């Protein structure tokens, strides 16, 4: 049951809209519920061939010899594709936005880095003939020691998973093996805290489990173009990735998609399109490449598992004074998108709370497992699990109602976040209050009266002095207001009646102010690692 609480933040909204806010039935609903919507695999093209890939049976091995002679002679086989047939066999997804190094082949050549890595593609008249030919591909493996644990992978002497990143970690800003976040002085705050709690959290890899598995159909079109029916979540992202791998201009391709049977992040990686198109290029026939359910579950990319260590300092009155994070994202054998998630996760630390001292180091680690990728809540779901379990433990430790503990520490409009931007348009407190009300979870009146729009900013807007930095910096200047920011003006009219919000216990001394960082001059962008901005 869904209830719209129009009474809350009513002064920030106009509710006189005609189409917006209505529960209008979806344009595509009838097709979906009658099974007549057209998905990529509903395109039945005459003469379609079927592509299947031979996958590594080892998590880590050198490929001594790959013999496809017998497979090529197998009945119904039109073409066997090897790494050497792929125009640009090495790619990394985020290269389209200039982030990271090419580190993943479409078809493995010298080495396999995870169990299930594609080595050879077989294009045949029928799926059965493709499977029969696959059984005739002879691969001579020289197994190598595999590393599967993120912390083992970072130890000196660990097997090198991916030679592009010889230390088994993605490289940030050209020389760090992790992304840093530094805000205030956690060590000093720990020394003053009444309680310290240090805990380890471990996420699990999971499957996106869409109804429709990853797949595409590519067919030669007129004028040397190829039409591609695809389940991608990102049409141009996939199109441009294919143009790069196949080394052709992007207008060679006409991608058609848009009606997809569930994605959840698992259809961004452009797994099937490059080989399907290459198959069509090499045979002149339509080629269909669709993952089976086992392939989707085990070799299609999962949500990566994260290991997270949290150390918090909390005062007896419930104020959190320091949070230190060390986290490892298990990227599997290749980067895909995990490097991006690390930066997103760094921005998310320490959660929606105003904590005056925060320190975080997050690593994107390579291991000999199926490459991980985006999934709903990418970079955040795991950190939220860790933070919110930790919050419950901290509330227990200081004997507080967990709801009141959240409200006490919640960020409010005007507070400084650990990534050094002012919090605006916040609503955590109101969500906690409404959830408590709905669940009949008692909270005290003073907590019911607290508001995201009141008592933020001030000392809470300061950037604390941070070790390794020359001195404390002034608070960020007041940002431009827009019409939607009316709530702030409203709070100014109202004198604060509630108990004072937590203030940072060690107020930063207004030491020599340092000029704001000169972005764009000398730094490398983190996500756009190679471009000087």
């Amino acid at each position, binding site marked *: 049951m869904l209830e719209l609480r129009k009474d809350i933040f009513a002064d920030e909204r106009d509710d006189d809209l005609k189409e917006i806010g209505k529960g209008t039935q979806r344009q595509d609903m009838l097709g979906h519920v009658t099974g007549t919507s057209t998905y990529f695999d509903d395109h039945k093209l005459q003469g379609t061939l079927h592509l299947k890939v031979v996958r590594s049976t080892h998590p880590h091995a050198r490929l001594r010899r790959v013999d496809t002679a017998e497979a090529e002679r197998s009945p119904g086989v039109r073409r066997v594709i090897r790494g050497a047939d792929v125009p640009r066999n090495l790619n990394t997804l985020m290269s389209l936005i200039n982030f990271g190094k090419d580190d993943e082949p479409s078809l493995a050549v010298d080495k396999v880095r995870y169990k299930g890595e594609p080595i050879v593609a077989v294009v045949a008249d029928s799926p059965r003939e493709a499977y029969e030919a696959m059984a005739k591909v002879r691969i001579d493996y020289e197994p190598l020691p595999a590393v599967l644990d993120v912390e083992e992978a970072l130890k000196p002497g660990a097997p090198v998973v991916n030679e592009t990143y010889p230390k088994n970690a993605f490289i940030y800003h050209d020389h760090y093996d992790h992304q840093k976040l530094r805000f205030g002085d956690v060590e000093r705050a720990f020394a003053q805290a009444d309680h310290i709690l240090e805990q380890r959290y*471990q996420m699990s890899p999971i499957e996106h489990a869409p109804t429709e598995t990853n797949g595409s159909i590519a067919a030669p079109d007129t004028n040397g173009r190829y039409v591609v029916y695809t389940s991608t979540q990102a049409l141009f992202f996939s199109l441009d990735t294919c143009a790069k791998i196949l080394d052709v201009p992007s207008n060679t391709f006409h991608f058609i998609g848009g009606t997809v049977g569930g994605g959840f992040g698992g259809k961004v990686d452009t797994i099937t399109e490059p080989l399907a198109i290459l198959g069509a290029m090499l045979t002149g026939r339509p080629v269909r490449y669709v993952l089976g359910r086992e392939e989707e579950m085990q070799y299609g990319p999962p949500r990566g598992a994260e290991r997270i260590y949290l150390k918090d300092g909390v005062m007896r009155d419930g104020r959190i004074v320091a949070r230190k994070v060390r986290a490892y994202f298990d990227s599997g054998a290749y980067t895909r998108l995990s490097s991006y998630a690390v930066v997103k996760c760094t921005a998310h630390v320490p959660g929606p709370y105003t904590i005056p001292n925060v320190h975080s180091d997050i690593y994107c680690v390579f291991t000999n497992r199926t490459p991980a990728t985006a999934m709903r809540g990418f970079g955040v779901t795991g950190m939220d699990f860790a933070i919110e379990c930790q919050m419950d433990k901290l509330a227990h430790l200081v004997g507080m109602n967990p709801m009141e503990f959240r409200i006490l520490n919640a960020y409010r409009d005007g507070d400084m976040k650990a990534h050094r931007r002012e919090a605006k348009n916040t609503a955590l407190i109101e969500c906690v209050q409404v959830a408590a009300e709905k669940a009949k979870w008692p909270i005290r009146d003073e907590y019911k009266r607290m508001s995201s729009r009141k008592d933020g900013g001030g000392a809470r807007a300061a950037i604390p002095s941070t070790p390794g930095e020359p001195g404390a910096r002034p608070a960020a200047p007041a940002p431009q207001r827009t019409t939607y920011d009316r709530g702030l003006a409203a709070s100014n009219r109202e004198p604060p009646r509630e108990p004072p919000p937590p203030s940072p216990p060690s107020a930063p001394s207004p030491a020599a102010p340092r000029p704001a960082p000169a972005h764009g001059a000398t730094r490398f962008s983190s996500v756009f690692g190679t471009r000087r901005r």
Partner: protein
Amino acid sequence: MARHRGRGMASINYPIGMNLGGDPSQALVHSNPSGKFTVALSSIDLGQGMKSVTRQICAETLGVPVEDVYVDTADSDTGPHCMGSFASRGTHRVGNAVMAAAREARGVMMEAAAEELEVNATDLETDGRGNIHVKGAPHRSISTKDVAIAAQFKQGKTISGRGIFLVPLSNVDPETGEMSPATCYAHACLVAEVEVDDETGEVAMVRMDSAYELGRALNPRLVEQQLVGGAWMGVSHALYETTEPHYPDPRHGPRDFVEYLMPGPGDICPHDIAVLERPAPDGPFGAKGPGEMCANPVLPAIANAIFNAVGVRIDELPITPEKVLRALHAQGGARPQPRW
């Protein structure tokens, strides 16, 4: 041996759009000669309702009924560039692009109507039912269909619009992590009530109560669909799912939906949801996006509820009966905590 009830909560926020920005989306809107509009996109409808939300945004901005708008997606020959359907960016990024395109098309439509009615375009307004009339004089009116015919065959005007939305890319300080990750954030708090069987270690969901702040619920039915479905994904993530049951040992991975555990119809429980709307300054009609965040509070809320029920903390997902039993054994049995 007994079943113990407990409840736990979690509160979260979630950034809207790609981290650091730099993820544009475009839209094109045009009218046919009958005054019906097409929105051309390359964005993807994964089942979340991309087409419906952009359709409503377009209709609202144009001032025409939603039936007069159709969304065509995704064809790379006709739909302009979009970064993709991920990062909770559909409603916010694509919605803004559609709004901009519809605004431009509306400008032409009002000019064409003004020419037909021989008034100034600024004196006109739409009634949302397919008519344009002079403000304060509803009888001086023309239908959008007649405007479209006039524009096409008489005035030689194209009622169309282009839109793009881009949060400019920002960068990250390597030493401090200073950055501008997102322009707005959605919020949530969820209470999970569970029943833990201290003999089998099984955890059953009893009920969920939640509050989500989403800027504006552009289509409350689609929001409900996201929040209900997303919560079940969270339950599944917390209690059932893994592709590697012995992680980091990769062996014994499931290969199909028989081996891959997920909750079934018998595991469903009631979920009461409240939606709050604090409009985002740069959201289309203030909207943020419920897409990804709805699973996130469920995982820790369940873990915390299990502690409340039997006094054990399970910090590794998924929270299987085996892990609960081992923890209960190590603790010497269930230790129910006071109910809040």
